[in-house]
């Protein structure tokens, strides 16, 4: 068949989301990406794979989101010198993904592309590629110095502030290199990869059943989104149909995760503008929600609640009604706090026009998730591709055009309320029946999971080989959003960086893998 938006032969992939696969010659990649870009398709992910065990060479994969669904393009590459024309010219967000692919697989974009390393620091040598099939995952190399070529900013009065990888607060490790004049930030350069712990290689030693637990630990704050995306990919690859009740429960779990994360960040955003009251209040509410999570689903952050085939624990009627009562009480509390935040002159002064990302730049760079919506990008997988359980609920898209910290605060507040509404609707209409279907016999097939997590879209692209994982690429929305943080801080003062950073709250672990 042909893709609706593009004259290209595609094969629909079984699974919950509309996904189409196509093979293209590497040389055609820029052209296909150019057409796609012209038709408003956005880049979701780019990754590579070693196909030598399948008597081929390597491959580079690109996932693009069209209105009709996700297009998974694969370009086969030769065994010797696997190169492809880079696509960062069309999709700037591809830059770091291409560099990670070069570090892990030795699959490089052509001359002219950014050739600096990204995930590799000094833990393995340049000519060694951990994601190649021949690589022994247990092998340890002597640490080499990193020697990363940061861009130096010159000029009168310019100086650098290096921050991290160990930060001043309870934050994940990463390095930020600020070039400043006085208090103003001229340039920020991020150096990530500190948390690279070989997740993708680890997946390749696992069966489809074993992988679920690891998927839930790619980025702990998005464990539900990842677990659901993983389950969706496995269900697609095996042709398993999860029961309706399980899908509704997954919806409840995902929205609980969204509420918990937004509440925590709204508290920290208060804290970062010296409104410690906000921190105490929101973390009180979050704690109450986490305790209910633990009681109802056995885990404060809902880890391992979603499993391939369904969910691991049912929600009895009485418990569901208790959850509804808690959320109704919590909604009133959050409304009170929203009014306090909005009327607090000091907080608003810090929030408004701080860390601005305008819609045009957000679109060009592919900012996604709630941060994208706060920069006028009206995209939300729950709205754009309404699959069960969201199909019947008509989720409301919340957006704001200003793209500053205040807009991200507003979108978070509104998303908390909307998630509460969705949970109440899901509880009321909870289908009866089983909560888990047995996994169908594995075929060697591909599957895709694609979920709107609280931060943005989480993608799992899976290629199974019988019961085993041949290749799995988990893609965090932070890949797209990190480069925008570098832009958001331009012209802001250094003391506003923690506030701007927290307003996005991006994942290090999710992008470092």
């Amino acid at each position, binding site marked *: 068949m042909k893709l609706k938006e593009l004259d290209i032969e595609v094969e629909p992939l079984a699974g919950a989301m509309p996904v189409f696969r196509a093979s293209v010659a590497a040389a055609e990649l820029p052209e296909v990406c150019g057409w796609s870009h012209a038709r408003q398709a956005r880049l979701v992910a780019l990754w590579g794979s070693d196909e030598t065990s399948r008597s081929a060479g390597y491959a580079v994969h690109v996932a693009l989101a069209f209105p009709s669904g996700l297009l998974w393009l694969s370009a086969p590459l030769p065994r010797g010198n696997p190169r492809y024309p880079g696509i960062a010219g069309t999709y700037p967000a591809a830059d770091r993904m291409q560099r990670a692919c070069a570090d892990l697989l030795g699959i490089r974009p052509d001359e002219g592309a950014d050739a600096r390393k990204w995930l590799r620091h000094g833990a393995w040598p340049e000519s060694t590629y951990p994601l190649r099939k021949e690589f022994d995952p247990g092998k340890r190399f002597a640490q080499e110095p990193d020697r990363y070529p940061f861009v130096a900013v010159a000029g009168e009065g310019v100086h650098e502030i290096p921050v991290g990888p160990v930060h*001043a607060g*309870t934050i994940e490790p990463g390095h930020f290199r600020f070039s400043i004049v006085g208090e103003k930030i001229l340039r920020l350069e991020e150096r990530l990869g*500190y*948390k690279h712990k070989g997740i993708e290689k680890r997946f390749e030693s696992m069966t489809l059943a074993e992988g679920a*637990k690891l998927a839930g630990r790619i980025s702990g704050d998005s464990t539900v989104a990842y677990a659901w995306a993983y389950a969706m990919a496995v269900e697609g690859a095996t042709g398993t149909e999860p029961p309706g009740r399980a899908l509704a429960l997954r919806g409840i779990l995902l929205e609980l995760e969204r509420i918990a994360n937004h509440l925590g960040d709204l508290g920290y955003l208060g804290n970062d503008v010296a409104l410690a009251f906000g921190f105490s209040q929101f*973390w*009180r509410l979050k704690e109450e929600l986490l305790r209910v999570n633990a009681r109802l689903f056995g885990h404060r952050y809902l880890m391992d609640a979603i499993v391939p085939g369904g969910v691991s624990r049912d929600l009895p009627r009485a418990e569901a009604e208790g959850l509804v009562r808690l959320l109704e009480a919590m909604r009133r509390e959050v409304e009170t706090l929203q009014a306090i935040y909005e009327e607090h002159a000091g907080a608003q002064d810090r929030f408004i026009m701080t860390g601005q990302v305008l819609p045009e730049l957000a679109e060009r760079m592919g900012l996604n998730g709630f941060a994208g919506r706060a920069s006028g990008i009206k995209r939300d997988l729950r709205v754009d591709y309404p699959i069960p359980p969201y199909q019947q609920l008509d989720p409301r898209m919340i957006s704001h055009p200003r793209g500053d910290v205040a807009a991200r605060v507003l979108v978070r507040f509104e998303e908390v309320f909307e998630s509460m509404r969705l949970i109440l609707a899901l509880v009321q209409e909870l289908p009866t029946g089983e909560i888990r279907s047995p996994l169908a016999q594995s075929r060697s097939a591909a599957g895709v999971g694609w979920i709107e997590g609280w931060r943005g879209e989480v993608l799992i692209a899976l290629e199974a080989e019988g019961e085993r994982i041949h290749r799995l690429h988990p893609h965090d929305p932070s890949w797209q959003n990190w480069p925008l943080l570098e832009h958001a801080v331009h012209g802001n003062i250094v003391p506003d960086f923690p506030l701007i950073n927290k307003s996005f709250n991006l994942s290090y672990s999710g992008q470092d893998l």
Partner: protein
Amino acid sequence: MYQILKQIARTGIVTEPAPPSDEALRATAQRLGETILKHFGRALAIRHVDAGSCNGCELEIHALNGPYYNPERLGIRFVASPRHADLLLVTGPVSRNMETALRRTWEATPDPKLVVAIGDCGCTGGIFGESYASCGRVSNVIPVDVAVPGCPPTPTAILQGILTAISAGAKA
């Protein structure tokens, strides 16, 4: 301002009693003397180091600093630099890309110091294990006094681990 005060008064104090220390969490016998422990017990400065976690343990360290647990009432506070710290709270399997940074942070922490490893990954390497990219458990890189299992451990368990580290326990 009135709304803020009203909300504070309406909320009241939610802080719960602190848990007792738990000798089962101790990885190495207590090395510090009574005098030092007496001081640590009244004003303990903690530096958190994420050495490669999935960020799940960080969620619980944040929660620990919330009003339900409120460690500051016990004299426990989180500080911005290892040079101000008495205790390192380390999460994650130690990624090889964080190995040097963790070791340097430990070296920058003045003696006498304590290390508490947090989470299944900090205790054993967890699901990530040891590999080309992961050193595994925290004690593979720096000496650990107390190890708190859990995925992630609850704030109560983390607090219990910290209190165990500064309690006398069995002498080495």
